[in-house]
């Protein structure tokens, strides 16, 4: 496990752990509840990739922006989005962060710089680049971080956005979460060359162990500093793994087919690879936290998850009229 460049106090470390755990436990809960049909629609879970989003978001501020993906719960929570309002959204309730109009694939909180999960693969490239352009024009030092997957890296807007960001030296951070799969396709079978080489044509690049939260933090911190000080865009690739299926209830889609082995999945769940187990071992190994500290974090996370479930379930159904009144500002659709 990488050591971060700057010193941390225990609280900082435990905050990282807590956010990763919050993602993990809240999504495990979603996985179970999805099977029980407790909420509508599909969910794409981030389990196994928590260190990437949490590490990256730990070094940017509220005023900075992120764009996220269809697998957006983790980014939403990592950037400080409220779990209970996210759950209420997934449940389709009017207390939802998007009043039930968006659902899992569209959780957004603009007040916290979360410009939205996105159902269009690659949809975030241009949005993040536009926000970064805005920051550059304002000269206010804000940065825009675009999360995307290895599958999305085959969308042309990846290159287009890198080009604009590079030509105009925008504070865009291209954060590629390389989990090796796009839906049920092993990405290497549809990918030419190495993703990082695409970015090298435009900007500084780095590949980090995406399951090492401190390594991600360190790499992204450097990119953020570069961006804030006018040094232009960066590409950070986090190598990670998606533990769950592409979406919950994936089996229903696969019709008996397979695209990866149970062994492979289980290898990534081992203590030496799982981002949370690794970080917990690091904390105790380094004497930063003890078992009781970890248990306390776990406990508090579980409580938050339970409260969020209760909040979502107690929520009121979304208001159908909003579909008409919210399309435009001050104008009926």
């Amino acid at each position: 496990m990488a050591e971060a460049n700057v010193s941390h106090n225990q609280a900082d470390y435990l905050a990282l752990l807590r956010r990763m755990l919050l993602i993990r436990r809240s999504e495990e809960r979603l996985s179970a509840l999805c099977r029980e049909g407790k909420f509508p629609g599909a969910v794409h879970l981030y389990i196994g990739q928590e260190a990437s989003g949490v590490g990256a978001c730990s070094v940017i501020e509220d005023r900075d922006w992120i764009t996220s993906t269809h697998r957006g719960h983790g980014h939403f929570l990592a950037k400080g989005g409220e779990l209970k309002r996210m759950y209420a959204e997934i449940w389709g309730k009017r207390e939802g962060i998007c009043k039930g109009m968006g659902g899992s694939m569209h959780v957004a909180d603009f007040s916290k710089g979360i410009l939205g999960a996105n159902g269009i693969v690659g949809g975030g490239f241009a949005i993040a680049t536009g926000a970064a352009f805005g920051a550059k024009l304002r000269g206010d030092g804000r940065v825009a971080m675009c999360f995307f997957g290895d599958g999305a890296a085959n969308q042309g807007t990846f290159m287009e956005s890198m080009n604009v960001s590079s030509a105009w030296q925008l504070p865009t951070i291209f954060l590629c979460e390389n989990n090796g799969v796009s839906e049920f396709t092993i990405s290497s079978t549809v990918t030419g060359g190495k993703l990082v080489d695409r970015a090298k044509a435009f900007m500084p690049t780095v590949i980090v162990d995406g399951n090492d939260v401190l390594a991600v933090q360190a790499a992204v911190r450097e990119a953020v500093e570069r961006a804030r000080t006018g040094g232009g865009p960066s590409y950070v690739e986090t190598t990670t793994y998606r533990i769950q299926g592409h979406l919950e209830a994936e089996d229903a889609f696969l019709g008996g087919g397979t695209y990866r082995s149970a062994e492979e999945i289980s290898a990534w769940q081992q203590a030496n690879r799982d981002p949370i187990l690794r970080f917990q071992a690091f904390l105790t190994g380094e004497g930063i936290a003890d078992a009781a500290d970890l248990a306390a974090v776990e406990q508090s996370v579980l409580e938050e998850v339970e409260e969020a479930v209760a909040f979502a379930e107690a929520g009121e159904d979304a208001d159908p009229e909003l579909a008409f009144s919210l399309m435009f500002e001050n104008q009926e659709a």
Partner: protein
Amino acid sequence: MPRRRYIQAINDALFEEMERNENVIVIGEDVELAIFGDTRGLYDRFGPNRIRNTPICEATMTGMALGATAAGFHVVLHMMFANFVYTGFDAIANQIAKMRLMTGGQIALPITIIAGYGGGGSNAAQHSDSAHPALMNLGGINVAMPSNSADAKGLLKTAIRSNNPSFLLEASARGGQMGDVPDGDHLVPFGKAAIAREGSDVTIVTVGSMVKPSLDAAKALSEEGIEAEVIDLRTVVPIDEAAILASLAKTGRLVVVDESRDRCGAGGYIAAIAADKGFASLKAPVKRVNIPNVAIPFAPIAEAAVLPDANKIAVAVRGIVSKVAA
């Protein structure tokens, strides 16, 4: 007649046409494992040179479909959801739809694009659109929208044998629906509507996903003494104007039901045909039951509020057929 699910019927059509013509190839994201089930088993039978997973790059896939026709292939491109048609829209609108005319008819464009469309699954705005109005407006592309298993199979087979570009839009919510499919080499021609139900009081013109709720509405209305004729267009390009006008001549009343947004949607276009060529037959206003001019909201209650259903259709019909007055 075997009973097949809608999605299986599409799968059957692909199997048969790939067997029939070795120039038929299938490409798309995750077609090897079949995201919707419609391409299931093709990989095992035909291998990577006939069916192939592509990278995620809709803008290039649509243009590649055109390019591959130069080598003599009939390309079946699966685009998953209709919303992703927008992602690959440039080559569809600027190349595929125009290339034959622009080249003075030098080429044929044997391209079939498949995409699921429509709401009902809480898939939210970016996975629930119906893209057929935008496609219909391009002029150079045929658009088939089967409502049942037999038509799904027959229309797709016709599309694949055609030398013109066509879309086969799958009603996303209907994939599991069972239906009889005629034995043998079942082909359904483009531009021939089906009379899904006969009736004399009002005509319901509809297509694809909306045929079922239209029939449900007709059934309910029948109990009230209103006999609706339900016309299933099957293809919206070409469109069977004669069938629409013939039914209208019989009933004098028209409700158009379609799962696309109202403004410049398919419903308005059909209503316009009636208001022009069918004017002499019209005894009442032409009503449209379709999607209001909004994005599809996520929450089921809100989604249901914007999607057409049997009840909304029946209400529209009752509004123009007053048995008391008649």
